């Protein structure tokens, strides 16, 4: 059995084009549109020899593979490594990297803790924090939008909502980036991320303990599920870890990407100012247009077929969500950021049973920031080109100098 990047090497399935591309090339990660388009143009799947994986980027097949948890499992890891054959760098997540029935139990707890009701209850608090931050930035006029806005806001409101007693902004952001970089191959990005482990992981593990969480907040509610016997104490800690893994870096990315969309599409920003009701679909359009999580893997647990392609058991399939979200056949004028679009069906938050469990919270956080901006800021402008920060699974900005002009 030949192994590549922690999974079994496969033969290219009959009729599937072989494409010698590196989806993790830092240049592609920074500017992926041409790669997305070529991936879609080649067919429903391509075989990528250097990693011996299949990749899909058309909306239809990506949606099928990404949502059908019975044939395309998550328990063998959502990165290149096959957890059935190798031991992952950290104990697998008990909500992300698991299948039903085990998944149903933990998912139920998290869905309740992060319900729309729970997110709504935080709306005023989120809005007050957003008003304060946007006022400060307006006063200054120009600022670094990633370091001083996108990273600041979630690391301000999220630890509070969690009930974390200690906050280390940098560790919270970097831990997320680490978890996502770990999904890729053994490249520079992954090695650098892993090198941060000894410093960050013990801190994160410590914050997941019951005694390091306030009496109120998502953390306490997760531990309450342990008290009620729904999960055990260790599982509660693991679910808190999931929130810390997936709840910070992703929202930072969402805010940064939303600002980038508005700064580079001033006519769309005008529409939002005229009609703030468009804010909600506009954030969905940001998600479709920028795909903060650009790709995740699934593993086939049986021989199967998708769109006439035979796929062998044990195959890693890279689901390129960014490509699916820019598929012209699903989204007319996909290359255009259009706040009038209703992009329901985008795959940026996943779909089906593994759909992002924190999506209500993410929408509430970003929604509060955008609402404050629309109310206070007349003009958003880039004062220097934005730079992207390559990551094996996240498409995020590294820096974006912006200016805000009041109404």
């Amino acid at each position, binding site marked *: 059995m030949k192994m590549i990047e922690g999974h079994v090497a496969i033969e290219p399935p009959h009729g599937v084009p072989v494409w010698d591309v590196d989806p993790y090339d830092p240049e592609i990660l920074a500017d992926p549109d041409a790669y997305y388009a070529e991936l879609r143009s080649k067919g429903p799947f391509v075989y990528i020899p250097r990693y011996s994986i299949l990749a899909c980027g058309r909306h239809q097949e990506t949606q099928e593979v990404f949502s059908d948890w019975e044939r395309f499992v998550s328990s063998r890891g959502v990165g290149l490594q096959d957890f059935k054959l190798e031991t992952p760098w950290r104990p697998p997540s008990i909500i992300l990297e698991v299948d039903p029935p085990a998944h149903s139990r933990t998912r139920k707890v998290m869905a309740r803790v992060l319900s*729309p009701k729970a997110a709504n209850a935080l709306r005023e608090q989120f809005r007050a924090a957003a008003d304060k931050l946007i006022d400060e930035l307006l006063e200054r006029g120009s600022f670094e939008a990633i370091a001083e806005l996108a990273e600041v806001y979630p690391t301000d409101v999220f630890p509070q909502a969690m009930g974390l007693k200690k906050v280390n902004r940098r560790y919270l952001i970097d831990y997320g980036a680490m978890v996502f970089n770990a999904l890729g191959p053994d490249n520079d990005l992954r090695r650098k991320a892993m090198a941060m482990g000894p410093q960050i992981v013990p801190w994160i593990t410590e914050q997941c303990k019951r005694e390091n969480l306030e009496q109120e907040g998502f953390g306490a509610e997760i531990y309450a599920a342990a008290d009620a016997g729904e999960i055990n104490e260790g599982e509660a800690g693991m679910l808190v870890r999931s929130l810390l893994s997936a709840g910070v870096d992703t929202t930072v990315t969402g805010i940064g990407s939303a600002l980038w969309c508005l700064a580079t599409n001033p006519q769309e920003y005008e529409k939002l100012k005229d009609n703030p009701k468009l804010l909600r679909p506009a954030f969905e359009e940001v998600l479709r247009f920028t795909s903060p999580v650009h790709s995740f893997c699934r593993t086939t647990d049986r021989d199967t077929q998708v769109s006439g392609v035979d796929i062998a058991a044990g195959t890693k399939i890279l689901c390129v969500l960014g490509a699916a979200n820019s598929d012209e056949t699903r989204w007319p004028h996909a290359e255009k950021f259009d706040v009038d679009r209703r992009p329901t069906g985008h795959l940026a*938050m996943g*779909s089906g049973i593994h759909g992002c469990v924190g999506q209500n919270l993410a929408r509430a956080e970003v929604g509060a920031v955008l609402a404050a901006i629309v109310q206070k800021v007349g003009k958003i402008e880039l004062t220097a080109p934005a730079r992207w920060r390559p990551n094996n699974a996240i498409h995020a900005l590294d820096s974006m100098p912006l200016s805000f002009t009041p109404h």
Partner: protein
Amino acid sequence: MTKVTFVDADGNKTTLDARDGDNLMQAAIADGIDGIVGECCGAMMCATCHVYVEEPHLTTLPQRSEGEEEMLECTASERRKNSRLSCQIKIGPDIDGIVVHLPEEQ
């Protein structure tokens, strides 16, 4: 194809020929019905495709799952006896002629 009717909060009616096998939320989105948001696209996460179902279909629809029950506790407009998530209503001959009312807010 199956006939489905949406009545918005102001009483305006829209009747569509919806594709069998889709769900009611998808049919509404595809036709640009304003009162349905469907943010989570049927993952039963967001409660933004809430509708009030008229009889006789209310009684003949399959029962709500536990997940739908929980999500209906999170709707932006009041939950009523005939509240359902439209993403959980499968389109097919058995719901032909169904009439659903849209809430004020999602």
